[in-house]
């Protein structure tokens, strides 16, 4: 059973690396947000598998807290995007009617 956990966690870790790479090179901003979101979910899974691997399964609260924080992070990004777009148009309106 040991090596099953180990194999899965390696797979998850490689995906995390891929997500980080996409986060770094992602041309558009949304790629980076996608990378963060994906990274967050992968960390949740990574923690769940590792807590089983290290024999302390009662540390799953961490994984749940991660999932929750990840969701709030993505929504905060969306609100930031929306307010930025509208603010730019507000300034554009001001620019136009000046």
């Amino acid at each position, binding site marked *: 059973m040991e090596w099953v956990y180990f194999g899965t966690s390696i797979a998850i870790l490689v995906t995390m690396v891929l997500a980080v790479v996409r986060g770094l090179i992602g041309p558009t901003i949304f790629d980076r947000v996608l990378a963060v979101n994906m990274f967050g979910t992968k960390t949740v899974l990574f923690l769940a598998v590792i807590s089983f691997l*290290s*024999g*302390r399964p009662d*540390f799953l609260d961490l994984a749940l807290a991660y999932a929750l924080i990840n969701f709030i992070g993505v929504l905060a990004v969306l609100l930031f995007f929306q307010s930025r777009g509208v603010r730019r148009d507000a300034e554009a309106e001001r620019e136009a009617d000046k």
Partner: protein
Amino acid sequence: MAVLGLYNYFIFAVLLMIGLYCILARTNIIKSLIGLTIFQGAVFLLYISTDKIDGGTAPIIQEGVENQIFANPLPQVLILTAIVVGISTTALALAVTVRIKEAYGTIEEDKIQEMDREL
């Protein structure tokens, strides 16, 4: 194999260098603040890498499990405090940054210095 044991300290040194460089080289205020969080994050890594013990687990005593080896709880307590100190300083610095943006109209330190010099 010995070098692997020192890997944590090496990464600590590299992160400190990146953090300090980011604070000193970048004039944008928010970029410097992110550099400051990296700088403080590196110190957390130093403390926590001292608490690891081979074969040990988190210092939460489970009933019925005999002679477990536990990691050292003291650095974890110190770092719990340091993390919250870090976020308090960042929050205060961000509030000051917002006020600077409203007062000066920019958050680039060199532009602010020019505006002050004219005064």
